[in-house]
């Protein structure tokens, strides 16, 4: 489904930052993969490279067999099949929840307004806030906004969902409601790549956990292996710091 091969990404800001160094990984259909690691370890960059919000410098990234780094690939077509949820929600501030959910369906998927609204309504019910259909993002709580954002991504019927620290900007009491939605998705068999600091979520839902540090994948394995018997010193140190 998603395959990254020897992906490298370097940022040149005030100084050279090697965000990704020779990263390879594979995510199969139906997999829930959680990427964890200290801040600055390159986990968000990896996620953003998967749908080309950042362009990898080197290597190959295959989505459904299509090499997205090939200049001939139409990246918009690939992105249609990949939902993304951001840390800061990024809801369209000038549109209601309904507007947020229907816009891309109509513009990109060419659905009729009626069709798009039906799909939107069903998804708002699924994420538990059908009563907020006419609310603007600014009048919603963080948790509600993030659930609308998840629904917006789902409205496109993606094959993969990417989550970039979806709960990091939330007040503690709202984290649960967002994680619940994500757990439901995982149970329904959605392919998910989740960058998060929620170890509980990783333990409970993940099929596989990837631990990254300094732009490299240090360790990778099932949650049982990962939380009970990590092999690398760096992983042990990280887990001891956060658990």
């Amino acid at each position, binding site marked *: 489904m998603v395959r990254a091969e020897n992906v490298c990404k370097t940022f040149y800001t005030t100084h050279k930052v090697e965000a990704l160094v020779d990263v390879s990984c594979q995510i199969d259909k139906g997999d829930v993969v959680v990427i964890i690691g200290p801040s600055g370890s390159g986990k968000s960059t990896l996620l953003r490279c998967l749908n080309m919000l950042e362009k990898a410098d080197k290597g190959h990234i295959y989505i459904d067999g299509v090499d997205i780094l090939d200049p001939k690939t139409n990246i918009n077509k690939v992105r249609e099949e990949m939902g*993304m949820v951001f840390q800061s929600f*990024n809801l369209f501030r000038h549109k209601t929840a309904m507007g947020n959910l229907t816009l*891309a369906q109509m513009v990109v998927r060419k659905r009729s307004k009626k069709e798009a609204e039906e799909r939107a309504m069903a998804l708002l019910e699924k994420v538990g806030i059908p009563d907020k259909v006419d609310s603007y993002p*600014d009048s919603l709580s963080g948790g509600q906004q993030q659930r609308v954002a998840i629904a917006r991504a789902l409205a496109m019927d993606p094959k993969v969902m990417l989550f970039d620290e979806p709960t990091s900007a939330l007040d503690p009491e709202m984290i649960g409601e967002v994680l619940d939605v994500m757990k439901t998705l995982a149970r329904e068999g959605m392919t998910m790549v989740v960058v998060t600091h929620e170890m509980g979520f990783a333990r409970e839902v993940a099929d596989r956990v990837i631990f990254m540090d300094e732009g490299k994948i240090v360790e990778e394995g099932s949650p049982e292996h990962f939380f009970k018997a990590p092999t690398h010193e760096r992983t042990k140190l990280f887990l001891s710091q956060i658990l």
Partner: protein
Amino acid sequence: MRTGNFSITDYLRTRGWRHISVGLFFVMMGLVVFGLFFATKKVEYVWRWYRVPRYFVYKDKIEIKAEIEGEVASIVSKGEEVEVTVRGADEEEVYPLPAESLRVDEGDFIYFGDVLGSYQKWKVGILVEGLWVTLKVSVIAVLLGIVIGLFTGLARISKNPALRWTAITYIELVRGSPLLVQIFIWYFVLGTMFNTLLAKQGLGQLSPLWYGVAALAVFAGAYVAEIVRAGIQSIHRGQMEAARSLGMTYPQSMRYIILPQAFRRILPPLAGQFISLIKDSSLLGIIAVRELTKATREVVTTSLQPFELWFICALLYLVLTFALSMFVQYLERRTAIGG
């Protein structure tokens, strides 16, 4: 409890300062007006406001004169109008004129240049004509300026160097040189060249008005471009990323997500720019476009009442700019989030 007791400190703490401030404002305005009035008393100037209305509307006397010599052969009534037929030795001429203006009878002998009928008609004065030209020039230049500014602003933030550098060059050239000089260049250089080209093709000439409009639009466009750029860049990067992550193309994201949000942010500076443009149109008088300022100048030279007329001129500009200002505030309210 001190209710019922009037206390000056309580009054000051609640509504007093506001009342005093409002009073102060009116006192200051009054002083300015009185000061001006007092100053004009000191110079030898006779105010003649009654002379002003005629430059807005006036009654024009229209005389219909015979162009041949002969006898009034017939006067045929056709509703409100009459047709006077004058028959000369070997020619005949028919003059239609309003019934009440008729000055001749059947059988009268008419000499060349005799008045057959005369009447008065209301006509708009030169100031109204000038105001209309200013309004026309401003509206066209504002609309063109928005289009130019929008595309230049988008080009300015493009990754393509050809587009970006062209936009920067245009903006810097236009913003960095005086509008007066640009108007001269548009009319005397570009206008001459273009009109010569048109003439060689056997086509008609473009009037100075259009070169003036072009100069204003291109001038405003450069400023609008920077306003548009700043507006777009003020929208959080995440909005574009969210739109792109849903599979929308760059132009789609711009159109549906970024520009609608940027629009309401750029409205206030845009209003300022277009108010400037209305006032800058007063420079077009130098290329013989008879807009409001040039019209006023002409009227001043004939009436010799500069005080009244220049005040009126300023007031008319104020009417235009204030109307625009109100319109933009209405747009701001209408596009407010959740509104």
